[in-house]
């Protein structure tokens, strides 16, 4: 089933768009049924996951409809189209699941995901999500700061970076099967990385749920990171390994197209992607573009991480 626009749009916006389109196309005569097609949203799939809302981390804009956030996804392990992850997500088995925390740490350990869930109190935080493709969403995530896990592992003095690795298993991720000359494929497994201070930043969320429920497979079950001031692809999904290192980790999109995707990939309206402007974005469910904010609106919390850095060079 393809998602309807009305499923993700507040009815007022939806109506104004409809009227606008109707006017533009001179088809106004039949617009009257618009409101009645705005169906009540079904409850999110997956088990409920209790979490305490953290009022320090919320945004004023209304959250994106769950149906949009769970059907319009970039998750190339399932395929290159936005609908592939929700269509094929059932092939991923999020239990049993282990994640290895190792590298330059005093206490390396392989965690069962159930342990991860109990390691720190679960909070609900409403974050902005900005995709490098110039669209955005507002999502209530459930998790706790990644720093809680990293502190347990005790980073050693030489540790400067954190590398995240997504599961590699073609049985669970159909698009990881070998393709003709590697066409249409990234270099699996998907890896991402952060500087250690970015990883320890209170905004960086180790995430296990969204919209009050366990993370759907297509959104990176059973656990992922969410780094709201960076483009979405930095927030690696379905993690099996978190490794601390002294060298900058290689990241999947940087390997595929180094001129387009740098290591930092901070949301920055002043540094264009070679193929499109990053100055504006389309909020899913809205009609007109919005201005993109520096660090996706989190500048007062994260700008100090980058003082003295040339962000045009370190894109």
């Amino acid at each position, binding site marked *: 089933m*393809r*998602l*309807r*626009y*009305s*499923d*993700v749009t507040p009815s007022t916006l939806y109506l104004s768009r409809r009227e606008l*389109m109707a006017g*533009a196309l001179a088809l106004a005569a*039949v617009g009257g049924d*618009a409101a009645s*097609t705005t169906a009540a949203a079904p409850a999110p799939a997956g088990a409920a996951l209790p979490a305490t809302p953290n009022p320090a981390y919320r945004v004023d804009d209304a959250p994106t409809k769950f*149906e*949009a956030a769970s*059907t*319009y996804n970039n998750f*190339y392990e399932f395929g*290159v189209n*936005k*609908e592939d992850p929700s269509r094929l997500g059932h092939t991923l088995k999020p239990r049993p699941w282990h994640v290895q925390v190792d590298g330059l740490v005093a206490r390396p350990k392989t965690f069962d995901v159930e342990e991860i869930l109990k390691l720190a109190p679960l909070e609900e935080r409403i974050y902005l999500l900005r995709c490098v493709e110039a*669209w955005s969403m507002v999502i209530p995530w459930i998790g706790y700061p990644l720093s809680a896990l990293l502190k347990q592992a005790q980073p050693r003095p030489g540790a400067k970076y954190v590398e995240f690795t997504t599961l590699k298993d073609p049985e669970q991720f159909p698009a990881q099967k070998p393709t003709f000359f590697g*066409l*249409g*494929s*990234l270099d699996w497994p998907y890896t991402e990385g952060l500087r250690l201070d970015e990883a320890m930043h209170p905004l960086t969320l180790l995430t296990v749920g969204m919209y009050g429920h366990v993370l759907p497979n297509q959104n990176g079950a059973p656990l992922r990171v969410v780094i709201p001031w960076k483009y979405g692809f930095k927030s690696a999904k379905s993690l099996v390994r978190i490794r601390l290192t002294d060298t900058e980790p290689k990241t999947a999109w940087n390997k*595929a*197209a180094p001129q*387009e995707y740098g290591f930092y990939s901070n949301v920055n309206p002043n540094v*264009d992607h*070679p*193929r*499109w*402007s990053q*100055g*504006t974005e*389309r909020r*899913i*469910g809205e*009609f*007109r*573009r919005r201005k993109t904010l520096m660090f996706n609106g989190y500048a007062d919390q994260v700008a100090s991480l980058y003082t003295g850095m040339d962000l045009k060079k370190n894109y």
Partner: protein
Amino acid sequence: MTARGRAALKTAVWLVALVPLAHLVWGWWTDDLTVNPIEYVTRQLGETAIRLLLATLALTPIRLLFGVSWPITLRRLLGLFAFFYVTLHFAVWIVLDHFFDWRTMGDDIAKRPWITVGVTAFLLLVPLAATSTTGMIKRLGGATWRRLHQLIYVAGVLGVLHYIWLAKKVLVQPWVYAVLLATLLGIRAWATARKLSARWIVLGSRG
């Protein structure tokens, strides 16, 4: 081919070529254009445009390879439909995507090669559409008209380049179109080369 056969064929092309548009209108009507409708519509129109452009460019190679010439009667119709979809594609970008924000659009055209070549391809197709009538062919004269209409090769190449440059590096689809276009143009080049070399042989045997 009989006149009635030609009419039936053209009706069929009309129907097939209008399916993608009908699909979008239906999607708009039933509110079924995905959660990012503007992107979806832009892409559907672009995809249809490139397909029709390649279909237009396929008719002569079909004649060259298989010796059937009736498809040539569809060239004008297919070419005009290709232009129609490119125009809609462009219009959606101007009206729905950027809402007449001329500064941003000008910036995009100047700065982003994939948009520069897209707009160029569109502009190259304008004189072709404008001179597509039988009256215009007569006014220009066959030779001039044919030379002018060779611009469609350039538009085809730029259209494919537009897709290659806009798509993420790992996508396959643009390369499929690139291979198709190269094949179609290759067949023409091969036929032209053969004709030229045949003429050389004739000339040579005379001298």
